[in-house]
């Protein structure tokens, strides 16, 4: 029943996104450097695919270089969670429909479940773990989320916060209505929505974007 189309990183949440990043890999695999370690399998339709092939890549995550050797189909989300122990980014659908996996890639909010790890190579990735200052001081958005009780179970929260920071930086936080609109790609099943809006309105001031 939402009034307008909802965009997160240029993707409409309610668009029919039934494929996973793994499906995308079939389309994109030619663009990445594939280190063949296993024989090429045959998919049902007879298209050659690279199941199980490893891709060597370097990711710049929260200011650190991380070296990985991954199945070419690995999403950025699974790379973070299963291969780098950065489990702050959450998996709520793996289909671009919930926003729990939102991270920043070159400063833009991106759904890491719809991004192949290999596509993020060479870009600057920031996850929830990289948002607080090096001294552990919370980002104003993190502090505002606590103060305004903008979560309950906390599972959507890393994604909400990464989206919220981007929402402010994009200049899409002028008023409550605009915040609601530009935060609608992040589902909160605990339904902390009014508190999320309040947190963003307050953090915006501390971020110097009021």
């Amino acid at each position, binding site marked *: 029943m939402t009034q307008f189309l909802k965009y997160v990183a240029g993707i409409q949440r309610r668009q029919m996104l039934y494929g996973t990043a*793994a499906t995308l890999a079939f389309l994109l695999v030619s663009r990445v450097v594939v280190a063949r370690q296993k024989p090429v399998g045959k998919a049902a339709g007879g298209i050659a695919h690279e199941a199980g092939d490893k891709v060597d890549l370097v990711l710049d995550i929260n200011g650190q270089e991380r070296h990985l050797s991954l199945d070419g189909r690995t999403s950025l989300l699974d790379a973070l969670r299963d291969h780098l122990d950065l489990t702050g980014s959450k998996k709520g*659908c793996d289909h671009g429909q919930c926003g729990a996996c939102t991270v920043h890639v070159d400063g833009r909010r991106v759904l890491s479940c719809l991004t192949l790890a290999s596509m993020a190579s060479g870009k600057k990735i920031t996850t929830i773990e990289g948002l607080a200052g090096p001294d552990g001081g919370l980002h104003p958005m*993190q502090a505002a989320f606590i103060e305004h009780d903008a979560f309950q*179970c906390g599972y959507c929260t890393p994604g909400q916060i990464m989206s919220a920071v981007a929402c402010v930086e994009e200049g899409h936080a002028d008023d409550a209505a605009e915040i609601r609109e530009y935060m*609608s790609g992040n589902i909160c*099943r605990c339904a902390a929505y009014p508190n999320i809006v309040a947190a963003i309105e307050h953090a915006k001031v501390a971020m110097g974007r009021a």
Partner: protein
Amino acid sequence: MANAAAPEPKENMGQPMPRIDGRLKVTGGARYPSDIRLKEPVYAALALSSIALGSISRFRLDAARAVAGVIDIFTHETLSDAIKEQVMMGQSEQAGYAASTIRPLQSASILHDGQIIAIVVADTFEAATEAARLVAPEYDARTPSATFGSDGVTIEEAAKISKKHEDPKIGDAEAALRTAEVKVDNRYSTPVQHHNPIELFTTSCIWDGPKLTIFEPSQTAHGLRFGVAQQLGMNPDDVHVVSSFIGGAFGSKGATTERTALIAAIAKKLDRPVKFVSSRADAFFVSTYRAETEQRVALAASRDGKLTALIHEGHEVTSRPDGYFVGGTDTTTRMYACPNISTKVSVVHADRKTPGFMRAPAEMPYMFVLESAMDELAETLGIDPVELRRINDTQIEPIKGLAFTSRSLMPCFDAAAAAFRWSERNRKPGAARDGDWLIGQGCATSCYPTMVAPATARVSLMPDGTAHVETAAQDVGTGTYTVVAQMAAERLGIDARHVKVTLGDSKLPPAPVSGGSNVTASVCSAVAKACDAINEKLRGSNSQNLAEQFRRLGVSELVEYAETVAPGASPEGIDQLYKGISALGGGPKLKDRIQYAFGAQFIEVAVHSRTREIRVRRMTGAFAAGRIMNTRTARSQLMGGMIGGIGSALLEATEIDRRYARYVNKNLADYEVPVNADIEALDVILVPETDDKVNAVGVKGVGELGIVGTAAAVANAVYNATGIRVRDLPIRLDALLT
């Protein structure tokens, strides 16, 4: 600027302390079960049946096995000795933990859509996922019965299924209805719903010799421990469940579901840690769901608005083998004074998965119907809906004549009506407009039975004024970590920030399931009792200085363990708790009293005059629930409930293809839940109430209260806006196209 999230505490309300787990949750530091790093895990993925009834004649697994990285594929042909018979949670006298008696992979038989037919294990998540899609079963399919009205369903009375259910009844309702001055008599329906917590259903299993550790988000760490032990025929002492953080549950993580013991059995066979993270589509089958209902409510009244008859009949869908039902008439017959009441709850067995509890399992669907009917009666009588509730308000429930321990229904209506400016409402349907939008306002009663369960906790106090509370209770987002710290701090006279709380681990003293809104009441009672015992010991010394008291007592810490049951409840409940059973009691089931929390909700909708788009413009809820431990977390729970109620009213339904008894919209794009843009102005009012009879700490619980009545308030507002009465949820614009 005032912080709406932290309401100023009124009488009998605790401070709005920010959540003590807040920092972990906003930094990504909270480790939910699937965040726990395992040593060289393998990954499991499910293959689910694409028929609802029949059997598997054979599998073609070559393509799946050929996927690089696949380790093994388990089917009923290889795993059929793994799972023992299981007993359902709360459905019989026996100790039960399971969501269903259906045991997938134990035979070729298929009893519902989406039954697990194979589990693929591979070196990587990617390979397991790909191979699971390539599992090719051949079926002997039969025509299933999908739901109400399908050929082949069978009907069974709830009272015949369970000794716990008795259809409430008094007087002669049919006769009173026949002779009534005014009556309404209508049929309503509510749809299938899925909880869809944002955390997916996950299970990681690790064996160390005979010992099994399970990382899984669970509403009952001990219940899951015993449930898996029952299914695997193990000693429960050898099972350890860790569930420190839970990414939302809403009922979906309560009973032991099928996948856990299967993953455990596979981990044992492979002698490797196995990690399972469900897909969102599979999540529509991995746990339970709220079953669809069909209901009839008839209300009769005299011209002055006094109820003379109430008839409430409910039909609920369940699976073939399990007689699961929620039976909300226990509640709907206790809301208003009425001399003639008759009710009946029946189940309809179809070829479906066994349903289960979802937030306010009985009250959400049944109160939608009662509160819609109350609005219809008010309209027929020409009496204001708030006044109709006032006319029929009672401090004595009409079935057994028991007194409510406290009942602040009308104070809630009055507080919410004033804040909402109800007096400015245009009573005539379709009369209020704002440009192209038709404006309507409606209200409804909220309620939830006050349930309490046996609980235990251990509290340690150190000489430096820090304390540690340990209990297996879960925090599903409700704020358990925080309110437990507050309770200990208050009793021990220390700062709540100095209390460490450890939860969600079956090695800790057992606590009840996070269900029925009981945990704050039950667990805080046990924590308070342990703290009181510590205080008693401290009294051994006269000093006012804590460190000095410890020195004089000659101890370096004071540790006390406490067990509590609800007032009047049997202490045997503690023994049951030690077997993983939560003996929830209360609400309308007590012999000497009846205990409920109440509330009132007011909603304004705007319906577009041409497109019939429905928007909720503002919502006001006022709630009284005994002692409020923390106004911040209580408000959030009530708000979350109200917004969940908007989902029920306008968005949420799992659609069934009646030909095949299969779900159609198994994803978050097509199963719509409220998003931020759906919620505009929302106001929660906490109404002060003191009740020292419900339990030792006077807490009623607020986890479910907020979702009850919301859907009726929306339906009533839609009627006020359009003059169209919609009796089937969810209300979508097609129902308003005339």
